[in-house]
């Protein structure tokens, strides 16, 4: 057993320690808190690299190593926890610690004027600890605990500026909405446990992702002819719906942009929201059980999320909200890929997306910082001269997100489109290409409006480039944004996942052209969509002072701007269900419980008390009579009545 496997737990525990220590720090200990957080994250990054190297040379089953231990025993039931080191884990921990470190550094600049600086880094470290724990967990229960902890950290960080009512409301919304998914997720976990008797993923043949347990679930059908595997798979997927913002629980993610921008970058773009996709890939063997129909549903939910989110992004004006809807849309891509039996491309896209979306969010943060917290793109403009470093890196991020060759996003998106074609799922392929076009359109709109043209506000015209502590992370993130596509990451991740045509790593230069050799149709249509989207955006938004799109597409623009009325629909739904229920409960409590039961009992008791009191007349004759009557009663009871032992 290798050293790194035995000590893999250090990766989440180091940030946890940092969180614990900085929770005890006072407000003025700013540099110590930041130092602890960045230091622990850096150390975790080094450990993650060691873990990555450990998995590099291995193939097949050898690339997965697990370490299990007994947590506690209840009677005969031993609850075992553990961690797993495989390419999936290694890729994720490296990505998270790398992006996380950069975002932590960026935060030093971004949060420099905030008086709760230490608390911010405490929460960030807590989040990192939970997220890393979720990744290395070799037990669905441990994964769930960390899953809930990232939810908590997300809540704390979205509501970091809780004195703003909108931030407090957004934090609650995020927490409650994801909780809906988590309830079903937990039901799925419990059901899975009752079917397989274990929640360990890998346990030398006895884990729930291994052959014996999967075979048990194959033939098992439940009510209504639904296969148990389908039901469990869909319940587990509900967790991902909440966490990864899939339809219909996507509503919390755009609102979560109320949090500080580094938080949006780290949690609501790069890492936490991807946890749902990661979880689906981790448990892919359960979803993929023969006879299960879970994957078909997953594919369509992902596809629709990608489409609707992209449409909503068209008409947003807040720079962070555009990116948020774009995140939803990309997550939809990933989930769709999982549904298309292609978890490898899903993870590939997750990894590259993490890099370029973190870059985009940090770039947006830099812009917002420069424009004195102005977030409306129509009040920006002309920033490309004022902020050259931000402009260059942001443009690279945009190119990657749109899927322009040779940026990283092109390769991962192409892999998903190719998977749709290979599965002969033409509707989803068309949908994917269309969304790629939309993506290019709204991202070009963002760039053209915010960075090009003339400054449209006082703040924008006075904008300066952000300090180095903020721009250098952008530069560093730009590197994987450009290169991550062709370094063979897809082949590396595919080792951990089932795949029909595992991608091969043929060297960087060869990899650059693989998509065209492999499936020219997917690559061609993808690039065509990009060109079309860019052309349209240019026509509408070069030097534009206002958005002319609503005039062209009419009602669709209004629908997109109003986010297809999901929030209103939910509000209405809650008002008819929950509010009605609450009113009924209130009535019941007020009249039946408090009124009839409590007051009734109290009134009766008091009445009896007052009535009995009348016996105590104070008259001695009455007392003597009652006393004698009592004697007679006792004698009669015992001598005439049913006295004696029973």
């Amino acid at each position, binding site marked *: 057993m290798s050293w790194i496997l035995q000590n893999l737990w250090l990766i989440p525990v180091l940030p946890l320690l940092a969180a614990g220590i900085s929770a005890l720090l006072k407000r003025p200990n700013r540099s110590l808190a930041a130092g602890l957080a960045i230091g622990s994250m850096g150390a975790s990054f080094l450990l993650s690299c060691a873990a990555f190297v450990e998995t590099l040379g291995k193939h097949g089953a050898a690339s997965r190593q697990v370490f299990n231990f007994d947590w506690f025993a209840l009677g005969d039931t031993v609850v075992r926890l553990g961690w797993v080191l495989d390419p999936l884990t290694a890729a994720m921990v490296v990505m998270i610690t790398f992006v996380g470190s950069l975002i932590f550094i960026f935060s030093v600049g971004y949060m420099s004027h905030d008086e709760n600086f230490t608390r911010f880094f405490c929460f960030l470290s807590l989040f990192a600890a939970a997220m890393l724990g979720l990744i290395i967990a070799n037990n669905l229960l441990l994964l769930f605990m960390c899953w809930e902890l990232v939810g908590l950290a997300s809540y704390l960080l979205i509501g970091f500026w809780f004195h703003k009512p909108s931030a407090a409301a957004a934090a609650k919304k995020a927490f409650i909405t994801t909780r809906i998914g988590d309830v079903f997720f937990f039901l799925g976990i419990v059901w899975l446990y009752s079917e397989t008797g274990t929640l360990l993923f890998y346990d030398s043949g006895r884990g729930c992702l291994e052959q014996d347990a999967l075979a048990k679930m194959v033939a098992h059908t439940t009510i209504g002819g639904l296969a148990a595997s389908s039901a469990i798979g869909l319940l587990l997927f509900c967790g991902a719906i909440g966490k990864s913002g899939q339809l219909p629980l996507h509503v919390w993610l755009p609102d979560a942009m109320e949090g500080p921008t580094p938080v949006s970058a780290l949690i609501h773009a790069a890492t936490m929201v991807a946890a749902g996709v990661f979880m689906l890939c981790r448990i892919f063997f359960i979803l993929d059980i023969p006879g299960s129909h879970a994957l078909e549903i997953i594919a369509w939910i992902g596809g629709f999320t990608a489409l609707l989110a992209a449409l909503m992004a068209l008409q947003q004006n807040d720079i962070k909200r555009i990116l948020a809807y774009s995140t939803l849309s990309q997550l939809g891509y990933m989930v769709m890929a999982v549904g298309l039996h292609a978890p490898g491309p899903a993870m590939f896209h997750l990894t590259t997306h993490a890099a370029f979306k973190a870059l985009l969010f940090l770039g947006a943060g830099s812009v917002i910082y420069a424009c004195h917290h102005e977030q409306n793109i129509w009040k920006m403009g002309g920033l490309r001269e004022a902020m050259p470093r931000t402009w260059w890196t942001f443009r690279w991020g945009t190119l990657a997100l749109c899927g322009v060759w040779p940026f990283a996003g092109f390769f991962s998106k192409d892999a998903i489109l190719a998977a749709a074609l290979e599965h002969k799922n033409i509707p989803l392929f068309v949908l994917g290409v269309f969304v790629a076009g939309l993506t290019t359109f709204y991202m070009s709109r963002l760039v053209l409006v915010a960075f090009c043209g003339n400054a449209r506000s006082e703040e924008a015209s006075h904008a300066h480039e952000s300090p180095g502590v903020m721009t250098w992370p952008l530069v560093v993130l730009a590197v994987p944004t450009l290169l991550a596509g062709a370094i063979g990451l897809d082949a590396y991740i595919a080792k951990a996942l089932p795949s029909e045509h595992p991608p091969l790593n043929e060297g960087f230069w060869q990899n650059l052209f693989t998509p065209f050799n492999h499936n020219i149709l997917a690559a061609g249509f993808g690039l065509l969509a990009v060109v079309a989207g860019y052309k349209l955006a240019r026509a509408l938004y070069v030097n534009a002072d206002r958005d002319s799109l609503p005039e062209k597409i009419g009602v669709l623009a209004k629908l997109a701007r109003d986010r297809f009325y999901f929030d209103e629909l939910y509000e209405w739904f809650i008002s008819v269900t929950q509010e009605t229920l609450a009113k009924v409960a209130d009535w019941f409590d007020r009249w039946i419980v408090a009124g009839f039961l409590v007051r009734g009992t109290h009134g009766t*008791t*008091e009445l*009896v*008390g*007052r009535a*009995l*009191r009348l*016996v*105590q007349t*104070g008259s*001695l004759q009455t*007392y*003597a009579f*009652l*006393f*004698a*009557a*009592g*004697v007679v*009663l*006792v*004698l009669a*009871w*015992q*001598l005439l009545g*049913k*006295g*004696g*032992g*029973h």
Partner: protein
Amino acid sequence: MNASLIVLELAVVLLGLVVLVQDWFTPAKDRRTLGYGAVLGVAVMLLYSFFAFDGTETLYAFGNAYVMDGLALWFKRFFLLAALLVLIMATEFSERFDAGQSEFFALILFALAGMMFAASANDFILLFVALELITVTFYVLVSFLRRRVESLEAGVKYLILGALSSGFLVYGIALIFGATGTMNFNELADKLANNAALGHKQLLTAGILLVLVGLGFKMAAVPFQIWAPDVYQGSPTPTTAFLSVGSKAAGVVLLMRLLGTAIPDLAFNLEKLLMAMAAGTILYGSLCAIPQRNLKRLLGYSSIASAGYLLLGFAVMNKAGSSAVLYYLAGYLFTVLAAFTVIAIVVQEAGAEDISSLSGLAQRSPLLATSLTLAMVSLAGIPPLAGFFGKFLLLKAVIAEGVRWHAYYWLFAVAVVGVLISLYYYFNVVKAIYWSKGGTDLTPIPVSLPTKFALLVCIAGMFWLGLNPDGALGLAVEAVKSLRLA
């Protein structure tokens, strides 16, 4: 014959006589010192009881009429401690008597002697004499505030009803003697064991029931509770305190002797009656206490309810129940005496006995407020105070019998309802201490050193019994060993 067994009783009587004689030589303004002298004397006797007796063996005196065993010793110490605390209270209170302070102390001591004899009664004669010693003394104690019409009224009521109950008691004793030809508890038990037919004699049953009437009167159990509220309210507060602790406990120990020593084979026949009496007493006391605004009357009803809980321990007819009774009584002693000590002072300050005279007490005297609050919380049966474990043990004994006969579950339910109701009126008192409006008089209430000592003893007792139930329960279990119960 072993006259040395009654050394404690003799000492108490002697102390009472000394107080009376010393009164001649003490100027009126110094008479308080006589009270403190009596306190000291009782304290010495209490200490002495631990050296002179250990209660492990059963000893008899006066032709088996007097018994000295664990139970007797437990109750003698109980009465001595109660008298000690009451005497401290009485000494504080004695300023309100125009004359006869020393007589008041002496009468308390004579009543104490009666109670201590009652604890050792093993014969109907001694039972009757001891009870009469207590009752006759209390006639005077109740009406001691001769200028107050309420006190006199209470005295008359207690005298007449007490005489009535004594009449029934002595009639019952006569019937028992007529049926069995013996007055001695041991002999009676032997006769009943050897002659089953004797137990079915209606005459004997009637006699036992009439004795039960007399004891029920002392305990203030339904249907013989009628005197308690009026007498409690009208008596001087120290008398009320001694009545509710000492006199009630005397009834308890005699009932325990009667059921456990004299008629153990017949006791079972009284099961239903005792259950009914327990349930009725709990409900009557709890329900009637709800509308009360007079503090002493409220405690009078509370005392009736307590008699009901004590009867639970008798209804189950076993040693678990009996030891629970002792435990409950011990907690009751500290709790009720703390309450009455505070009430005596507050009533003296406010000149009224209404519950509203407690308003502002928390500011006026934190010690008094704390003591009374703890007493109420303990009476309500809330951990970690003594009252909780007392009620807990009694209810546990009841529910354990439920397996034998389901009616015990109903009895249990009634008792729990009683506890719930009692929460209401006890917490009304607590509410009056801390949250009542209109308490304009916020001058501090001075508390004398002996009273502080008494209150601290009571608080310590409440906590000791509540936090260390094992030790106190061990003593109680030891004490009821000599009873011939299951």
